[in-house]
């Protein structure tokens, strides 16, 4: 039922991007995030698509995995597309029927906004979640934000919390599935009925999910205690982060591509 959700899942492969230092990937991710929101010309979009495809190839991500990642956000993207298409009134009308008026500018903007969302998800997946284990993402964040420790921000603890949250996504998804099945077999119906009754239906799923999450949290805390967890001081790492010349090259390569992308876009406006 919920098993095909792949947001936040790690996809094990041996690729160049999998091997890249997670800090480099995290910084690149932010760079591309900015780039995605700056560009608006079709040429730049095409270049962005090409760069994204190159990333996917370098991460050895199959079209199927890509599709599974994008699929859950498509309804939202579609919704944004439709809202934009019908509400933006600037530009030259290309289609009018009664009160509906679609303009060339509106269509452009609508497609662009929807695509931005799709690219956002793809970038997040390729540069972070699919190619980097949650523990490494949190290691990267801990390392990037390490200077904040000086002003008493619990960087290590926050990173740990994040990695545990990511680690438990598959567990909680399968638990939700189990609870829903049990309630369906007791006559629950999540698909029909009024909006209110459907929301109420989901509440009956959330309560046992919360209760068991607290129980899990408690047990996990005891298990971490038993394994001598005592915060970040004096911890060593199985795979310490190390920036190699290859990481620098990859960072520079994609960094320059991103700058080129933005420059192209700005010059074409």
């Amino acid at each position: 039922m919920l098993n095909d959700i792949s947001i936040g899942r790690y996809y094990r492969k041996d690729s160049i991007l999998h091997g890249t230092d997670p800090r480099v990937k995290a910084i690149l991710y932010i760079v591309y995030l900015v780039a995605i929101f700056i560009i608006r010309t079709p040429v730049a979009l095409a270049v962005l698509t090409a760069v994204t495809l190159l990333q996917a190839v370098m991460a050895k991500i199959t079209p199927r995995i890509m599709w599974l990642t994008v699929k859950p956000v498509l309804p939202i993207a579609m919704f944004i597309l439709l809202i934009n298409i019908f509400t933006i009134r600037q530009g030259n009308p290309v289609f009018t029927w009664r009160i509906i008026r679609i303009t060339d500018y509106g269509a452009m903007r609508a497609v662009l906004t929807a695509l931005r969302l799709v690219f956002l998800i793809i970038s997040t997946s390729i540069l972070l979640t699919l190619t980097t284990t949650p523990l490494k993402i949190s290691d990267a964040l801990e390392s990037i934000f390490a200077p904040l420790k000086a002003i008493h921000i619990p960087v290590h603890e926050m990173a740990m919390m994040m990695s545990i949250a990511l680690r438990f996504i598959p567990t909680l998804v399968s638990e939700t599935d189990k609870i829903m099945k049990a309630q369906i077999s007791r006559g629950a119906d999540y698909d029909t009925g009024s909006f209110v009754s459907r929301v109420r239906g989901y509440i009956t799923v959330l309560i046992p999910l919360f209760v068991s999450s607290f129980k899990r949290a408690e047990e996990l805390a005891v298990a971490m205690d038993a394994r001598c967890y005592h915060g970040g001081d004096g911890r060593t790492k199985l795979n310490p982060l190390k920036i190699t010349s290859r990481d620098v090259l990859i960072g520079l390569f994609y960094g320059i591509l991103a700058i080129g992308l933005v420059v192209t876009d700005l010059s074409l406006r």
Partner: protein
Amino acid sequence: MKVELDKITVDKVSFSYRSDDTDGNAGMKKALNSVSAEIERGSYVAILGPNGSGKSTLAKIIDILELPDEGRVVIFGKDAGEDENFWDIRKKCACVFQNPDNQIVGTIVEEDTAFGPENLGVPNPELRHRVEEALKDVGIYELREREAASLSGGQKQKLAIAGALAMHPDVLILDEATAMLDPVSRDEFLEIVERQRKEKSLTIITITHDMTEAIRCEKIYVINKGEIAISGSPQEVFSSGRVGSCGLKQPENYALCYQIARICGEEILPADLASDDTLLECVMRMVPRMVSSFVPAEDSAVTDLSGEVILSIKHLSCSYDGGQNKAIDDVNLDVYRGEVFGIVGRSGCGKTTLVSHLNAILAPQSGEIIIHGKDGILSAGERKDKAKIRRTVGLVFQYPEYQLFEETVYKDISYGLRNLKIPETERRAKVEAAAGLMGIDAEILGKSPFELSGGQKRRVAMAGVLVMEPEILVLDEPASGLDPKGRDEMFRLIAKLRDNGTTVILVSHNMDEAAQNCDRICAIKDGRVQVVAAPAELFADRGKAESMGLDIPKLTQFSNRVKEKLGREIANVNFSEPAFESASEAARIVLAVKKAVKGNA
């Protein structure tokens, strides 16, 4: 107290925890009351006791995960009460807990194994070496780059023990670590433990409900109501006669001998329990007494299966990946009205997939399921029949107590009735009937389900399905996680449901349990039905059961050895078909010996 360097000494330890009563008044509840124990370095010790007896608390106190209110714990010469020894002791004691999902921290297998030594500040390359060594020791080295969430339950528990071993502990504490595993994974897990113990001279403290696991140990402490009720070698403990009063059960091989001895009016000595061989000797010693003994007549409760098919599965197959791997493959089954039908197989064999079809949670991809209920003939493939099928077939999943959600027990049980739009006036009577059937007191109905004990919660969850008065009740591992007494109660309830006319389909990975409680058993392996037969028929021919690769119930395994030996010593002995409960199996053996000896004379 003398300082003992080679002992774990627990000296008069008491522990209380906060437990508010139902009105919200703060109160304290005593979990342990002046408990003392001594555990030698390198020994293998079991702590037994019913759920809620305080045995897990004791284990936690040894690893300083809890601090005792009174008393002293000294671990290999280090006092657990002194702050300076805190990390030393934690480092020395490693734990494996019950639920594998709730102790895995890392996403990737090797990352998780490294978590403990990373916390200890072990530098590379030693860290990597430790991780690899630990993964090799438990046999999952080749899975080191896999996602932990994608492992099976048995593999996850091996990962948990690898994480513990990587810390290079002296003491390994297993807190019901095998409770959620199927018998095969459990044996694998225990073999790892025993091998590690020998290789690394580990001290093992295991907390368990599994009596066959307990007799592997050198010493047993039985805790009941916060106090040590019995302690000693397994032979001493299980011959003490007080085992039953502490909610425990004898292992099947002991039980059979005790039942034979009871019929013969003989005594069994602790020395007889040393091994299967001494047990066999003990049975042979009793042969002369068997001849003169009185064997109570068995009430011939032969089930009269009228043969009315209530549920029929034809050529059912299901695949989760578009046909490459089949979770279940061409399953054909007929279930008769009024029987307890067992579906038995290892974890991951397709049992749960199969039963999810039975009340239309999964629609058949190919094949069909026909249900002959009160509402006429229903087909699981038909959309219009879905609602009726869910009313006819009740499905209780594994650990149903985790799925309670309402404010009161009453509301939770009546949830299904509300979904069926049954008016409140009719609801109360139905809820009370279902609660009564499950042995739930009327006064509990107004309480919050989250205040109840684990066993009560499970019964509430089952009542929530029973209240819809299903003709067929499917129970997925209804006894998992319960202590021996709780298990017995559960199976008594199931027998009661059957007597009330409900057809029960019991899903289990435990052949002992199924053979004892089912009229017919269907063994499933890799998604295919191996065999469907009555248990007695299934295990009458030992060679056949073995050649099919069936798990043979522990009682039957030992009983077969007894029969083999008796067959060699006594001419013309003919054993009737096996029984799966030690008292009646003992009676059948004694009766057969009696007849043969009289006939020979």
